[in-house]
């Protein structure tokens, strides 16, 4: 197909209001999603936000999603080797002290804490009491002593031994991590139909996962848009925004052309940073004063503009509606120009 021919099929006519069409195309199924219930029944190992709340989360450009998830792909050689995959999995899931104990005895008066480790849980995470003890002995405010393989005794040796301080230190001990990556609450190994294993996680931390050997560094997936932008760059973030929106809308059972969704993603990322749609982002950072004032916070924009002497070139749609001029859309975008020399050739018609 010739280039011009292909453009004729895929292209849009100049002056087409693509933004409005996109807004309506996404907005219409959006209204129907509100009416539906938010919860979804079913068994899923990983919890994520779905439906309209997720769309709002993406479009508002929240710094951290409510339920971040990751999909970790592995390098070609080991992606079908279960033992190797498990080895990697063990490095990923964050195991806290409270995850591997049955119970604990604390004496706030003398400042001692005795941990009773759970044998089954220890063997499940493939760690020993020794690792736990050596990890805890790095703390400066505690002296750690391993009684036997399942009991660890600790004594508080910090300054000023009040019951409150001792208790705070102990709570801190229970919540401290032994192995794994910070922020990853749960990791599960999943097998695809072709036999390859992937690791799905609740919680996301691309920077740390990339450091692990055997992980396919450049093909990880996370639903945390800002993290992806930081690690993979702005275009990966654009693709992620578009893919996540597309996926959510499809899951709800609606069909929206990918072009509309991609336009939203492009609008959010065209400055090189992720902007939210709305008053703090795309709509609130428009060049024209009138366009901003027509949207939200009218007085704020007008006072700021008058104080700083802003100039409005009246090129957008909102400004021109405001002053009653023809808008630059559709046929209105066409401007006529005449060459000066051509005018001389025109001879006025003689009236009869």
């Amino acid at each position: 197909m010739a280039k011009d021919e292909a453009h004729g099929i895929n292209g849009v006519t100049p002056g087409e209001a693509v933004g409005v069409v996109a807004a309506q195309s996404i907005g219409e199924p959006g209204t129907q999603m509100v009416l539906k219930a938010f919860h979804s029944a079913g068994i899923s190992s990983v919890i994520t936000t779905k439906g309209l709340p997720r769309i709002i989360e993406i479009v508002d450009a929240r710094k951290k999603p409510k339920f971040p998830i990751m999909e970790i792909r592995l390098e070609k050689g080991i992606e079908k080797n279960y033992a190797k995959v498990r080895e990697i999995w063990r490095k990923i899931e964050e195991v806290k002290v409270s995850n591997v104990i049955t119970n604990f005895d604390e004496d706030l008066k003398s400042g001692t804490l005795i941990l009773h480790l759970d044998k089954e849980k220890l063997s499940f995470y493939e760690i020993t009491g020794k690792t736990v003890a050596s990890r805890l002995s790095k703390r400066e405010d505690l002296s750690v002593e391993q009684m036997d393989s399942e009991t660890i005794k600790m004594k508080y040796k910090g300054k000023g031994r009040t019951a409150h301080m001792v208790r705070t230190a102990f709570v801190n001990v229970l919540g401290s991590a032994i192995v794994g990556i910070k922020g990853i609450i749960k990791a599960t190994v999943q097998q695809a139909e072709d036999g390859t294993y992937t690791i799905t996680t609740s919680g996301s931390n691309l920077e740390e996962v990339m450091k692990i050997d055997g992980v396919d560094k450049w093909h990880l997936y996370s639903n945390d848009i800002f993290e992806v932008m930081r690690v993979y760059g702005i275009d990966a973030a654009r693709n992620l925004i578009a893919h996540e929106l597309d996926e959510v809308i499809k899951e709800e059972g609606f069909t929206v052309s990918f072009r509309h969704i991609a336009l939203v993603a492009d609008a959010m990322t065209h400055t090189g940073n992720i902007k939210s749609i709305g008053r703090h982002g795309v709509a609130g950072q428009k060049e024209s004063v009138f366009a901003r004032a027509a949207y939200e916070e009218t007085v704020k924009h007008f006072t700021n503009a008058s104080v700083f002497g802003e100039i409005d070139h009246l090129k957008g749609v909102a400004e021109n509606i405001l002053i009653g001029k023809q808008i630059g859309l559709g046929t209105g975008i066409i401007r006529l120009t005449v060459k000066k020399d051509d005018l001389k050739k025109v001879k006025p018609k003689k009236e009869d």
Partner: protein
Amino acid sequence: MSAPRELIPEHKLLSESEAKKVSKEYGIPLEKFPKILESDAQCTKLGAKSGNLVAIHMDDPTGKYTTYRYVVRG
């Protein structure tokens, strides 16, 4: 949930003459292209400096196409 295999599109740093050609083809100056920050992960990988133009080979459900981003300080 089906995660796409490729999240990161292929980036390519354009030379000055190539950038001029692209700018002429689209009929807009370089500053009017979408922006990418100098500190962006892909820019540091390519060694792109502000004032360069980066070609990005996208592959999404609409098909394969090339977009461009102008590198700015930041």
